[in-house]
């Protein structure tokens, strides 16, 4: 309505991601009509939104789905998979029966010539196979790497998007006044913990994250591995049956962690009421 240009301009990202309500879309489109800069930015960001659809981990659909989809859409069954058939078939399957027939009819010379041809072909195929295997192992490493990153990101997103999300702000204790941290906890999806300025610890000590509840001893959530600046963001699984946290805290413990806290508390906080 009376949004300043700066505010409206900022809407370009949400617009290309389709995260505006119809009223907001109308407002932004009215603005687009008169703002060259916003039109250019929308045009620049659209391919990114488009790319996100394809940047997800690729998963092969189950084989039975093809028949089901085609039958449901068209009401008819359709023949075999398009991709694999015509080109590939020209090699061995058609040569071999012909070769068998020829063997009974033509002289050994012809047979010898074919065996040379076939041997050459086998060598060539072995070469391609080797090449493909090399590519595959490279791809496998890249995929494993990408999957690790994606899984980490996905688990963080899953927690933060949880409908039962609880936010807990943690304050640095007197031994770490400039440290701050925040935990997002969902009973169904676990915890995302983010911190900055955690002091570096002496060798042999690690930070351990704890959930305190109204009943029972503190529950270990996991060990923290801050970056060199003392920052981190990480996702953790929490047991689905724990009582709601009354407090979240980080202590320093011997390497490998301990079943119950023994060290000093560095940051701690309670859920907002």
């Amino acid at each position, binding site marked *: 309505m009376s949004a300043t240009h700066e505010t409206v301009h900022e809407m370009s*990202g949400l617009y290309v*991601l389709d995260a505006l309500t119809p009223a907001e879309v109308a407002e932004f489109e009215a603005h687009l009509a008169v703002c060259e800069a916003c039109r250019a930015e929308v045009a620049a*960001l659209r391919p990114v*939104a488009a790319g996100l659809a394809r940047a*997800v981990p690729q998963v092969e659909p189950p084989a039975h789905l093809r028949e*089901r989809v085609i039958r449901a859409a*068209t009401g008819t069954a359709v023949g075999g998979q398009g*991709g694999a058939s015509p080109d590939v078939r020209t090699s061995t399957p058609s040569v071999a029966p012909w070769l068998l027939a020829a063997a009974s009819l033509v002289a050994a010379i012809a047979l010898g010539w074919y065996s040379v041809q076939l041997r050459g072909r086998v060598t060539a195929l072995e070469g391609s196979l080797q090449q493909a295997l090399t590519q595959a192992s490279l791809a496998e490493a890249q995929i494993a790497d990408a999957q690790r990153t994606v899984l980490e*990101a996905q688990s963080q997103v899953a927690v933060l998007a949880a409908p039962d999300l609880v936010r807990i702000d943690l304050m640095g204790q007197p031994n770490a006044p400039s440290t701050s941290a925040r935990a997002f906890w969902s009973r169904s999806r676990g915890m995302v913990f983010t911190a900055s300025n955690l002091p570096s610890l002496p060798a042999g000590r690690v930070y351990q994250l704890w959930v305190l509840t109204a009943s029972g001893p503190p529950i270990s959530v996991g060990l923290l591995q801050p970056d060199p600046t003392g920052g981190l963001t990480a996702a953790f699984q929490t047991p689905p049956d724990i009582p709601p946290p009354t407090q979240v805290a980080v202590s320093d413990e011997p390497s490998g962690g301990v079943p119950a806290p023994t060290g000093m508390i560095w940051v701690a906080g309670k859920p907002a009421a």
Partner: protein
Amino acid sequence: MWVFWAVIGRVGSSEAGRGSAEDARVDQDAVRRMARHDADALAELYDRYARAIYSFALHIVGEQADAEDVVQEVFAQAWTQAPRYEARRGAVAAWLLTMTRSRAIDRLRARRARPDAEPANEGQLRELVDPAALQDLGLLTRDQISRLRSAMARLPVMQRVVIEMAYFEGLTQSEIAERLEEPLGTVKTRVRLGLLKLREAMTESRI
């Protein structure tokens, strides 16, 4: 072992084998034939895009059975809407993936129990405002997509989270702000900055 077959399969796939202009032509031809009720044309389109559609749907809905239903709905919709498809409105791949997101998010929203939902936003999610929104999709190379993927992983976590919530969870800016207990302006800024970074990563070594 599936990786091996995936690699072999890709050697002959459209992305590697043909230019995008050729892909676009072949796709559009298939849609024209679908409009004339040629079921083989639908099968061709399925063989080219089922993997991308299924993967995208699965990423949004998170469950295999739901993802399969989405794939079925998308191709059924493509079949009935083929006569009205206009090539100038965008690449066929974009058209299919737009429908995929829409169907998948409808499903997600229907599943999500949100007592605080505004009735006006509930139910069906509108189609992308402009179907041409994804028109560049056909022109994205595999290299750009892989750069986008790694750039996404490198984004500051809160920028990545708001982008994922908007695009893959179908949440509006107000819903995101509410979930994260952040001001609306912060959400807006994070989405925009994140996307600009992704754009930069995607285009930096574009030839």
